[in-house]
């Protein structure tokens, strides 16, 4: 009995060609980009960099040409993402739009919405955030209370979204809200909306500082915020199905095991200065995990390419990836000869300081460990 399918895939030559092209671009663009900034991985923000990515045609790589997309394969996109992450490029501005908001609009949006929204994303000019979580609704997303009431020509939205990464610098949010009151069927009565964040009336966005001192996520409050009818994505009531598909995109990429790779690189640099049998073995073990996760992640890309549902396998990779990424600072800590700090003299200690703080979020964001394991348990037939 096979519970999951991790068929092996080799990346096609065109993906490897693109990889080289991306590598050269990054070497040129980010030659002096400091290690500690690289370690922010896809949380690093730089709208100018995103615009350059857009000029290259590297946002919306797989999307239809009629919207400005590249109509290239998921394997090419996979190689592109790997290189960006390996280099620690500041892709945070456009990452969410490229990964999930665009694909959600493409799949469930109207032709008009596609034409209106996607070209801006593709140019690296239009950035998105995810409006799912609320103060009283985290893992239990179906319990959200933010609601949209029908009015002339559209809806009025009231409620609060929270942990909204990037809301303060984004143009749009895709919000999941209630369009009818909770009923017997918990998953009914929700819809997704395009929220124009430049429209300030009825909207308050307050950044929330995280434990590392960064202001990435936000509290977003809606008070009679008007959304026109044409900004609803999909049919009224289809929100839950759509958000489930969106989460599959959110969880399926290489960022789920590559976001602490800068620490591994610095750990290797450090171990080369002060070689020990113990460090060598620990590094070897991490590489064995890395190579295995990569195989599994490429297999998930293969599922996207063949249009089969990657949700279960993506949950497996995300869960294993988070364990692996969270071990990294623990292992680095065991080999450190000095103290980690953001103001330390070495890249190793700076990166270690950053990743040590960031890593605890890796098994929360995008679905917690417990929720992912619940999904896997369902795949095993236990639920």
């Amino acid at each position, binding site marked *: 009995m096979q519970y999951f399918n991790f068929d092996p895939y080799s990346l096609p030559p065109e993906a490897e060609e693109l990889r080289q092209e991306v590598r050269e671009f990054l070497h040129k663009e980010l030659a002096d980009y400091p290690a500690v900034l690289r370690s922010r991985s896809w949380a690093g923000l730089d709208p100018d960099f995103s615009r350059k990515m857009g000029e290259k045609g590297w946002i919306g790589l797989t999307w239809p040409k009629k919207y400005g997309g590249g109509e290239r394969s998921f394997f090419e996109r996979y190689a592109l993402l790997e290189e960006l992450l390996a280099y620690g490029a500041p892709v945070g501005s456009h990452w969410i739009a490229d990964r999930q908001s665009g694909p959600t609009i493409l799949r469930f949006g109207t032709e008009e919405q596609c034409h209106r929204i996607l070209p801006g994303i593709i140019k690296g000019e239009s950035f998105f955030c995810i409006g799912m979580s609320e103060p009283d609704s985290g893992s239990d997303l179906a319990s959200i209370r933010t609601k949209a009431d029908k009015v002339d020509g559209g809806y009025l939205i009231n409620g609060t979204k929270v942990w909204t990464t990037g809301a303060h610098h984004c143009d749009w949010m895709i919000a999941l809200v209630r369009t009818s009151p909770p009923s017997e069927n918990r998953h009914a009565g929700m819809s997704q909306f395009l929220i124009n964040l430049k429209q300030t009336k009825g909207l308050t966005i307050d950044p929330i500082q995280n434990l590392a001192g960064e202001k990435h996520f936000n509290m977003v409050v809606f008070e009679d915020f008007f959304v026109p009818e044409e900004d609803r994505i999909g049919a009224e009531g289809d929100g839950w199905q759509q958000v489930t598909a969106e989460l599959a995109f959110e969880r399926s990429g290489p960022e789920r095991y590559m976001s602490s790779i800068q620490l591994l690189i610095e750990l*290797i640099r450090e171990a080369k200065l002060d070689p020990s049998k113990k460090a060598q073995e620990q590094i070897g*073990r991490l590489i*064995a995990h890395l190579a295995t996760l990569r195989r599994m992640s490429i297999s998930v890309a293969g599922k996207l390419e063949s249009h089969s549902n990657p949700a279960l396998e993506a949950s497996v990779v995300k869960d294993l990836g988070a364990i692996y990424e969270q071990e990294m600072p623990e292992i680095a800590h065991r080999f450190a000869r000095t103290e980690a700090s953001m103001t330390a003299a070495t890249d190793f200690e700076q990166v270690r300081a950053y990743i040590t703080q960031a890593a605890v979020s890796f098994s929360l964001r995008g679905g917690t460990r417990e929720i992912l394991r619940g999904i896997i348990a369902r795949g095993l037939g*236990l639920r």
Partner: protein
Amino acid sequence: MNELRQIMADTVEKLFSDQVTKNLKEQAEAAVFPEKLSQAIAENGLLHVLVPENMGGVSGQFADAEVIARAVGRHAVPLPIVEQIIANYLLAGAGITPPDGITVFAPVRENETVHLKDGVVTGTATRVPWGRKADHVAVVTEEGIALVKAEDYSLTENQNIAAEPRDTLEFKGTKSLASGNLPSGMTVHSIFALGAMMRASQMTGAIEWILEASVQYANDRVQFGRPLGKFQAIQQNMAEMAGHAAAAGAAALGAFQAADLAEEGDIDSTFEIAAAKTRISETAGVVTSHAHQIHGAIGFTYEHDLHFRTRRLWSWRDEFGSDSYWADWIGGHILELEADDLWPWLTTRPT
């Protein structure tokens, strides 16, 4: 899966499901050799999967052998199947036609040197799988491969945790029946790695069986008025186990696929083998621990089928290089690279 591989998979699955009963495994641990099964396996040509057709084999790929190795692990078959597959492969590669009967290979451990000079073999090989049941041994030396007859060396019996024979063979100037060069492109170390690769696949087979048995047990066993699997604590543990099992499967396939590429001369597959053995040996720890936890006391009995796999996992993860051995090997290789070359290097590896 190609046609040959599918046929192979179906053949072994049928053969092992029919014949590898609990009784047979218990008997084997009590030193009753499963003669009939051993012969059936030989007659099916499974042991010659890696031998070229012109030497009586099927000219299969490593990925074909993987199907067999995985089934050996899945069914905990108490026979030297992968050992014979490797021995026959090595002999054929050295230009020696594999003899009838059981042929295993030795040494199977790092840093055990056996020498071959003018057709004469000298040295000691410890923990040789099924040495006592072998009719012949393919001896691996820096100087080449030598075929020796069982009567021509002395043997001391030993065993692993799973009661599989692991014997000491002493060659005191043993005259070989035939000798030849190491198969082209191979070294003593890469042959050791082949052993690790086979164990990786066997372990994956055992892990898959254990996962299924554990899920089944979680659904069947009722406590507090509900199947165990309905309790969230159990679901979480089963999910963790399943994730590691999936990683094991991916890593094992990767190693065999790389070994096939290496055979075509494209790459050296030691890294993928090392990664697989490291990753899967670690999985073995997670999986055996969760499996015994869910099974409760019944799983701790000799009566229950579980231990045939878990005891093998505890043995196999040590054999042909433990996780720490191979992790160290990988680490040594990585530390020769510049830190910034890690990623570019990794992307040259086959997936």
